[in-house]
């Protein structure tokens, strides 16, 4: 290898900034430099801004500031077609293939050779075949892509990008859908592509893979580029602590938990996702009254599906969920709520609120059975207003009046509306999913204090969060989720460092079954 000839960057993204409509910086002055012929990993937690940066590079999003320099020339991409024309190809996480069309038809889509008005299948096949040889796929060219396994479909996507003349290949979390064997195969092929002079940008948060495949690593956190380093000069632990960030302060008053009876009992819960993969795999734990149990984990390791099953949003494939001792399998969501469950969903705009409706209407939406809202068997506007105004005052929701549509509020105040609704229905079990994501510090602190107050009033709280600071501040015990299972249970969060936690989050370390089993809080049965 002549490493010294490869130092000219083929691609530079300079000072890229992108602000989304709700005022959140997805990218803030991000710079990225990629060398010709390298495999360049882009790592960061979900929401760190990796995908946005790559969408900008592929012409799917326009940057608010900054420029892209490709082979020394400044370029502007108005659409993916522009990017494709300049030799950039992208393999999306969700494949863009037409299942009933053959591999050849999918690869050549939009760029078919034509002879006398008909598609020239022979030429098309020959052209595709040349590229497919690299992937040992030349025998599958006539197969309908719908019949192919996921790993092969991904290869088809790569071939499609190469057929369009890609020199720089962006792979968006390519291993997320692959089995370990398929991953190995993909890596072999990426090495082959690299040796042929292709440049690969590899988005991932699986550090082991990144370490294995890449030459250099760029680390992003909260919309900013933290660093670009040589892969050889950094350990997985170091990447992880830079990805997650470490500085936080414990400034929240909280007394020791006094856990009592079990309010949520999850036993052997399993969710089967697409491709028949177990996204939640035989998971058991419990949450007791008077404690906050935190679930940590890199997003996409099954936390979503777990919460969906507990809250009744997703069918339980195997196992059981008991709330207040009742099996929830056959209960409707309304019945779950009547049992005392309340839920703060991670997506407040989509699942938490009806944003076009008023604050008042949102606040009463779960309380329509409450007699206090009625007068002569009809909803009373005055009574609704009184209740809403009370909640707006109690939860310090900043707004003109309770008639303001929720969509006019800031993220923090929207979340307060959700919280005000959920915390005022005699809840005993609170499921809080990313309760303070993307909201200002003041609102976050308020919500944290409320959660602790409810804990002290004997509620059970299950907290799912990607924010380690929040996790440490609130949790009385921590479960770590990795690849659909728990990889650790810590009865005492103070005694585990965030580096250690990171190791379990990324599956570098996994506790024994008995250690994790402590999360069920069952008394040891005496052996007979």
């Amino acid at each position, binding site marked *: 290898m002549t490493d010294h000839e490869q130092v000219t960057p083929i691609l530079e993204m300079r000072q890229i900034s992108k602000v989304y409509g709700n005022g959140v910086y997805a990218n803030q002055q991000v710079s990225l430099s990629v060398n010709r012929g390298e495999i360049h990993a882009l790592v960061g937690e979900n929401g760190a801004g990796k995908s946005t940066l790559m969408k900008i590079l592929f012409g799917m999003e326009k940057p608010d500031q900054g420029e892209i320099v490709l082979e020394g020339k400044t370029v502007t991409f108005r659409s*993916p*077609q522009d990017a*494709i024309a300049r030799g950039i190809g992208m393999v*999306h996480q969700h494949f*863009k*293939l*037409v*299942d*009933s*069309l053959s591999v050849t*038809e*999918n690869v050549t*889509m*939009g*760029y*078919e050779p*034509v002879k006398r*008005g*008909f*598609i020239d*299948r022979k030429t098309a096949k020959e052209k595709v075949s040349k590229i497919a040889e690299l992937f040992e796929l030349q025998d599958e060219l006539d197969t309908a892509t719908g019949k192919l396994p996921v790993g092969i479909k991904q290869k088809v996507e790569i071939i499609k990008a190469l057929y369009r003349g890609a020199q720089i290949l962006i792979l968006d979390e390519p291993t997320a859908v692959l089995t370990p064997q398929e991953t190995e195969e993909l890596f072999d092929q990426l090495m082959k592509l690299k040796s042929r002079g292709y440049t690969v940008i590899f988005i991932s948060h699986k550090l082991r893979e990144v370490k294995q495949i890449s030459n250099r690593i760029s680390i992003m956190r909260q919309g900013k580029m933290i660093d670009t380093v040589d892969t050889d000069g950094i350990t997985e632990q170091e990447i992880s602590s830079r990805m997650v960030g470490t500085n936080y302060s414990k400034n929240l008053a909280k007394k020791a938990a006094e856990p009592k009876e079990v309010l949520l009992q999850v036993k052997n819960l399993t969710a089967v996702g697409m491709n028949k993969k177990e996204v939640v795999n035989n998971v058991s734990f419990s949450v007791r009254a008077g404690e906050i149990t935190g679930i940590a984990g890199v997003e996409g390791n099954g936390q979503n599906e777990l919460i969906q099953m507990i809250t009744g949003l997703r069918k339980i494939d195997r196992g059981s969920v008991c709330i207040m001792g009742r099996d929830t399998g056959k209960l409707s969501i309304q019945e779950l709520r009547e049992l005392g469950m309340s839920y703060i969903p991670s997506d407040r705009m989509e699942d938490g609120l009806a944003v076009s409706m008023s604050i008042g209407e949102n606040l009463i939406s779960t309380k329509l059975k409450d007699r206090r809202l009625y007068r002569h068997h009809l909803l009373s506007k005055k009574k609704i207003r009184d209740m809403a105004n009370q909640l707006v005052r109690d939860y310090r929701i900043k707004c003109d009046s309770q008639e303001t549509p929720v969509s006019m509020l800031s993220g923090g105040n929207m979340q307060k509306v959700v919280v005000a609704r959920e915390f005022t229905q005699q809840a005993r079990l609170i499921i809080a999913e990313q309760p303070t994501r993307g909201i200002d510090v003041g609102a976050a602190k308020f919500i944290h204090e409320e959660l602790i107050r409810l804990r002290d009033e004997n509620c059970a709280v299950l907290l799912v969060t990607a924010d380690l600071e929040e996790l440490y501040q609130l949790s009385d015990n921590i479960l770590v989720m990795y690849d659909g299972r728990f990889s650790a249970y810590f009865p005492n969060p103070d005694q585990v460092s965030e580096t250690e936690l990171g190791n379990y989050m990324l599956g570098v370390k996994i506790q024994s079954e008995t250690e994790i089993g402590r999360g069920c809080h069952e008394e040891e049965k005496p052996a007979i």
Partner: protein
Amino acid sequence: MGQILEIIFTADFLHSIIRLSTPILFATMAALISERAGVINIGIEGTMLFASLMGVVGSAFTGNVWLGVLCAVVSGIAFSGLLSFFHLKLETDIVLTGIALNLMSSGLTIFILYILTGDKGVSTQLASKAVPNINIPLIQDIPVLGSILSGHSVLTYLAFFLVIALAIFLKKTKLGTYIRAVGENSDSVETAGISVNMVRLKALLISGAISGLGGAFMSMAYVNMFTKDMVAGRGFIALAAEAMGRGVPGLSMLSALFFGMADALSNNLQLFNMPSELTRLMPYAFTIVALGIYAAREQRKSKA
């Protein structure tokens, strides 16, 4: 019952199935091409009706039957162009727009007819031409089979030819491939740099042209005049036929023939003193029963 069977197993009856299937077959192919592009063309009924009047008017004024057919095709394209403009450009709901255009077509045809002839029901005052029937050499001499297959309208043969042409078009041409791809996963087509709306527009225009041929058959071959609302639901029956044929040209043709048979049956049953009000119900009753059976089977399959 024996009498009914006697009628069904005659060459005449089979001949009439082919004749009566022709307009349904045109409409089914029109439904098929747009459905494969992911647009359900509810407007076929109105398109056919409008085209059948324009065919009559065109042939009457030019004195040439083929110019009449051309008129029907062009007006079919124009009519579905209007539907495309609303649905693709203004992004209106396809079903609502289709229904509105169907109702408009029903009124508009009567209005035009009245302006031209002073009559609100039939176009007998217009000296329109008929598309000729042709006898196929060799085949016409085969006993029984000859009398079934030969002696149909040129448009009937065109309809069956169209089934093959469409199958090849969808499989072997660029546009055909894009149409299939758009119907299945429009995202993949968009990322390949092809305009999904453009593909859908072309599919709808082709659909309109084929509906135009169906309209021409109604007023220039099936009968030799235009009558009020003469398409009589065939444009809707076609949607059922296309669905039961699962969008495959060959299978859709078979279900079109099935509905043609229902039509033929309803004509013949009148010979047995059955009230015509009842027999005329046949094709529509067949449609709903057939759709029910089809849907139930599909449901069972998807559960298995």
